[in-house]
């Protein structure tokens, strides 16, 4: 299968590829240029030419050498692909040293003032100094334990469902849809807001940072899902009134931009309320985002409902199940399973939309960044701040998407 000729080609090819990679690496990491005796442009393109010839030489049909076959099948199918592959590898090699030196080697993290940042790289001191603000907003420093303990309580209660015994399992949906949100609201209200049980009152205007991102996302997520489910069912209802109300609701909220909804909720909405009726700005914002996202959830869930074959409805009906029993036990479990990727998509978008609450004067993590970067003492560190926020958002969103994959795998019962 492997001719002697090909083995020679293989060694020669691998040698050429190695040379080209070494040349680029030396150039990138140590600023050495072996080939400077050649004219400028040739010296510049030499690694690419050598690498391409090398990849050409090792290209072959099935050889039986596993790694080589994988390489040939995936990236080395033609000269064009070989060039693209090499270019990408070279770009990565070239990009490593400057980004490394900016982020780590030339960066500063010690000290607690602007003067500590003497290097040419990133100033992580800035993040360190502002860290509490990014996490907790303008919430008083000595009261941060209240936010932490509220979150821990909410998470523990959220996990309580995992401990449910066989007997309690049927109440799980009830728990998560109705009881849990209420308890979570009370915990967050009394612990973070205070004003009772001897806890000092902290107005919601002072809340902020990542904790506010969590609070807003959390409540919007748990409320918009059941609401969306109701409107998805409503849109498919055979009762015209219900159907048209649902269609009207969905099309209205999908037709307006979130930013105007937020403006409305904070500026216009209070004007329509009776004078002695007070509703907190944060609550209004959460309601606005919930109503907005519920319309998107409804359409995603409707997609799942439509994907189910009619036979499932027939079978459930023929067993004597009414509308609600049919939907609760047969239709929704299957439809919701189908829409896990779509719902995850909507939820991720929701989390990343939360920075918009900045327009009504609430500063979650991105909002705190915007404030911090205009602080006269700390001008010029926007980059560090945005990288920090990106990493945090990425971690949150990646965790959510991983979780959605897990759910998909967990509920997969079909072949």
């Amino acid at each position, binding site marked *: 299968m492997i001719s002697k000729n090909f083995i020679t080609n293989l060694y020669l090819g691998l040698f050429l590829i190695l040379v080209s990679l070494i040349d680029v690496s030396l150039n990138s990491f140590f600023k050495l240029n072996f080939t400077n005796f050649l004219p400028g442009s040739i010296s510049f393109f030499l690694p690419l030419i050598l690498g391409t010839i090398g990849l050409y030489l090792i290209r072959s049909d099935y050889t039986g050498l596993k790694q080589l076959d994988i390489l040939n099948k995936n990236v080395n199918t033609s000269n064009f692909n070989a060039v693209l592959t090499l270019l990408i590898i070279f770009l990565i090699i070239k990009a490593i040293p400057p980004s490394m030196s900016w982020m780590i080697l030339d960066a500063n993290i010690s000290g607690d003032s602007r003067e500590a940042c003497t290097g040419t790289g990133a100033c992580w001191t800035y993040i360190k100094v502002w860290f509490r603000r990014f996490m907790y907003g303008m919430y008083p420093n000595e009261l941060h334990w209240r936010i932490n303990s509220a979150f821990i309580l909410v998470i523990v209660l959220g996990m309580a469902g995992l401990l449910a015994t066989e007997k309690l399992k049927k109440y799980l949906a009830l728990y998560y849809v109705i009881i849990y949100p209420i308890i979570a609201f009370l915990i967050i209200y009394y612990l973070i807001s205070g004003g009772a049980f001897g806890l000092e009152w902290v107005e919601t205007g002072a809340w902020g940072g990542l904790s506010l991102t969590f609070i807003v996302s959390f409540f919007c997520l748990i409320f918009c899902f059941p609401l969306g489910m109701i409107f998805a069912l409503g849109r498919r209802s055979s009762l015209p009134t219900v159907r048209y109300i649902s269609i009207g609701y969905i099309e209205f909220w999908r037709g307006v931009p979130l930013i105007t909804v937020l403006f409305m909720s904070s500026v216009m909405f209070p004007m329509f309320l009776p004078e002695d009726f007070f509703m907190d700005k944060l609550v209004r914002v959460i309601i606005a985002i919930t109503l907005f996202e519920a319309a998107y959830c409804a359409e995603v869930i409707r997609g799942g409902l439509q994907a189910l074959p009619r036979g499932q409805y*027939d*079978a459930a009906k*023929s*067993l004597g*199940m*009414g509308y609600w029993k049919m939907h609760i*036990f*047969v239709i929704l479990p299957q439809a919701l399973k189908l829409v896990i990727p779509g719902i995850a998509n909507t939820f991720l978008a929701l989390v990343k939309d939360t920075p918009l609450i900045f327009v009504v004067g609430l500063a979650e993590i991105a909002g705190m960044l915007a404030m911090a970067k205009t602080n006269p003492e700390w001008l010029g560190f926007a980059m560090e701040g945005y990288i920090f926020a990106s990493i945090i958002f990425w971690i949150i969103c990646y965790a959510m998407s991983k979780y959605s994959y897990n759910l998909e795998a967990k509920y997969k019962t*079909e*072949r």
Partner: protein
Amino acid sequence: MNKWFGDFQVLKDINLEVEKNKKIVVCGPSGSGKSTLIRCINRLEEHQKGTIIVDGSELSENTKNIEAIRAEVGMVFQQFNLFPHLSILDNCTLAPIWVKKMPKKKAEELALDQLKKVQIDDQAYKYPGQLSGGQQQRCAIARALCMEPKIMLFDEPTSALDPEMIKEVLDAMVNLAKAGMTMIVVTHEMGFAKEVADEVIFMDEGMIVERAETKEFFANPKSDRTKLFLSQIL
């Protein structure tokens, strides 16, 4: 009884009475309205004119009434229509527990008993996707029987199956017939009709063309349409 799909009349002046414990086989070319007819009996399809009386009560707009009738009428579909997210056992116990309010323990005993009768009690904890077509259809029969229905409707139960699996499903149906269940079966399996049916109905273009005792039906069919159909199918 008459039924229209839009302007198209699928069922024309159907007049049919089925006595208790009788087994009726409905046959006919595709598009003749056989399936629509039996789907009307538990109101999966709505009829527009005429009356349908099941076990003494008339099918009407009243949803409670319809649900009560459906609980008494078992149905088996061509595509099995098992619930893929539930195990075989849960498929069988779901309706008894939630519609008939049967205690879970009792429903499970009943389900295992019915599954044993169709010989798939050893598969009870698997999911429908893990079973063969024949096993799935037998499970669907057991699921319908768990509601302890008075009538069983079969809508081409073997049409989606491999030839090898048809027999196991037919065996289950023959056993059921011998146990005295009232059955209306839409099928092309003439062997089954000969073995268990009391009467055979031949339908074409939405009308009942011929209705006769089984022996009579196969021995001397009266109408030319029936003769033609039988000559092609046998």
